[in-house]
């Protein structure tokens, strides 16, 4: 038996319905979705559409056809960034971004774009909307902000940022890898233009699922072109969504699993899932007070946050803490930089890193207590 506290990397286990949906799809409906007119192809297409519909609802997007499927949030972020930016453009982002945003933006920089990285507060590890808006210039073509940090679980004020940007006419790209499915994300009402999400974290889908919401006003240059099952007489990419940005055979089996995951959230209740994760997080944070030399980073007590906690035990390398938790206690966490060097620079934990605990709906209070006890032993 292991205790899995690495849900910010991918949620585990999945609901049984997610796993059985994968088998059921493969056994009964795994034709190429929507490419042919026969019943299996249409049935597979319906699964894909139902998943698109459910994902759009989870994001608060009015039209499911504004959502394209990708392999993961990283691919969605790349499609948005590369599809929008041109040499001479200016981009504003935050010091809490994951490399899935940082690296495409550093690439854009080498391609003639200018980049402003707005620092988050080292203590709260969140950015202030006013600081983001103050960094916008007439040349700003995009603002890219993570909804919540994958390191500390701190939540950024994306609704305030979106509201401020509306007057300036600058599009906002939100990296919702950590939040989609976990936090309400009313993209249409908030006026958010682009949202990258993943299916395998808080949406309880399998790996290889994710997508990008593109608001009706946005026109991205496709990064990938190819077969769409539409306009087959034309050898150029269709202009309309989702075909414009979605070519090739999709991960329909993954969509079947993601659809089951989204239905699990609906049936269980997003609030109930969030409440359980919050209880685990609070219990852990309280317990850490009894751990010698524990240094916890991120949101202040009582702040809204995700169920992700970054910490160090002063004097012990974070990788050693993680290894001992695994070897001696069967507790699985992630040590290091979490693909987020900027975030660790913000926290002051670069290059040493930190130990990250991320709790999921299937974790129990007893598991959290065991982790606190283990940390107490390691720190003693």
């Amino acid at each position, binding site marked *: 038996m292991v205790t899995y506290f690495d849900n910010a990397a991918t949620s585990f286990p999945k609901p049984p319905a997610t796993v059985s949906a994968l088998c059921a799809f493969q056994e009964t409906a795994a034709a190429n979705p929507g490419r042919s*007119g026969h019943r299996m192809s249409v049935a597979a*297409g319906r699964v894909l559409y139902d998943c698109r519909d459910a994902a759009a609802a989870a994001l608060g997007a009015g039209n499911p*056809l504004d959502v394209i499927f990708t392999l993961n949030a990283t691919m969605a972020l790349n499609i948005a960034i590369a599809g929008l930016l041109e040499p001479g453009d200016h981009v504003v982002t935050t010091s809490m971004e994951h490399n899935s945003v940082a690296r495409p933006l550093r690439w854009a920089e080498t391609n003639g774009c200018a980049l402003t990285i707005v620092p988050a507060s080292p203590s709260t590890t969140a950015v202030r909307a006013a600081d983001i808006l103050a960094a916008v210039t007439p040349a700003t073509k995009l603002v890219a902000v993570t909804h919540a940090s994958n390191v500390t679980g701190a939540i950024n004020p994306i609704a305030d940022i979106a509201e401020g940007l509306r007057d300036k006419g600058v599009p906002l790209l939100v990296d919702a890898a950590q939040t989609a499915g976990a936090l309400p994300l009313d993209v249409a009402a908030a006026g958010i233009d682009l949202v990258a999400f993943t299916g395998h974290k808080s949406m309880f889908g399998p790996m290889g699922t994710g997508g990008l919401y593109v608001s009706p006003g946005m026109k991205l240059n496709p990064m990938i072109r190819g077969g769409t099952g*539409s306009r087959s007489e034309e050898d150029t990419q269709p202009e309309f969504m989702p075909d414009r940005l979605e070519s090739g055979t999709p991960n329909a089996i993954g969509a079947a699993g993601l659809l089951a995951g989204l239905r699990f959230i609906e049936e269980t209740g997003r609030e109930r899932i969030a409440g359980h994760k919050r209880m685990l997080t609070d219990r852990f944070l309280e317990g850490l007070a009894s751990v010698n030399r524990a240094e916890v980073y991120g949101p202040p007590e009582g702040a809204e946050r995700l169920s992700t906690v970054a910490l160090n035990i002063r004097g012990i390398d974070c990788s050693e803490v993680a290894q001992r938790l695994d070897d001696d206690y069967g507790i699985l966490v992630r040590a290091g930089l979490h693909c987020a060097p900027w975030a660790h620079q913000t926290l002051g934990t670069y290059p040493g890193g930190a130990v990250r605990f991320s709790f999921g709906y299937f974790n129990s209070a007893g598991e959290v207590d065991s982790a606190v006890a283990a940390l107490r032993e390691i720190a003693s």
Partner: protein
Amino acid sequence: MNEKIMTFESVHHTLKAEKVLRLAGLKTAAINTPRRLSSDCGISLKFDAADENAVTGALAADGIGFKGIYDYK
């Protein structure tokens, strides 16, 4: 029974329309688009000609566009 075919821009639009019509209680069938009509999308929706106004009304209410409506045979 007279039947009609409705064509769409892509299969995603076809299946979105199919779902909206199903939820509106209208009977449709997804079929291969006859080659004589269009090659925009290989799948179209077939429905009872008597339902034409109800079908177009339900789609309009949901803001779903279609390419054309044709006699089935």
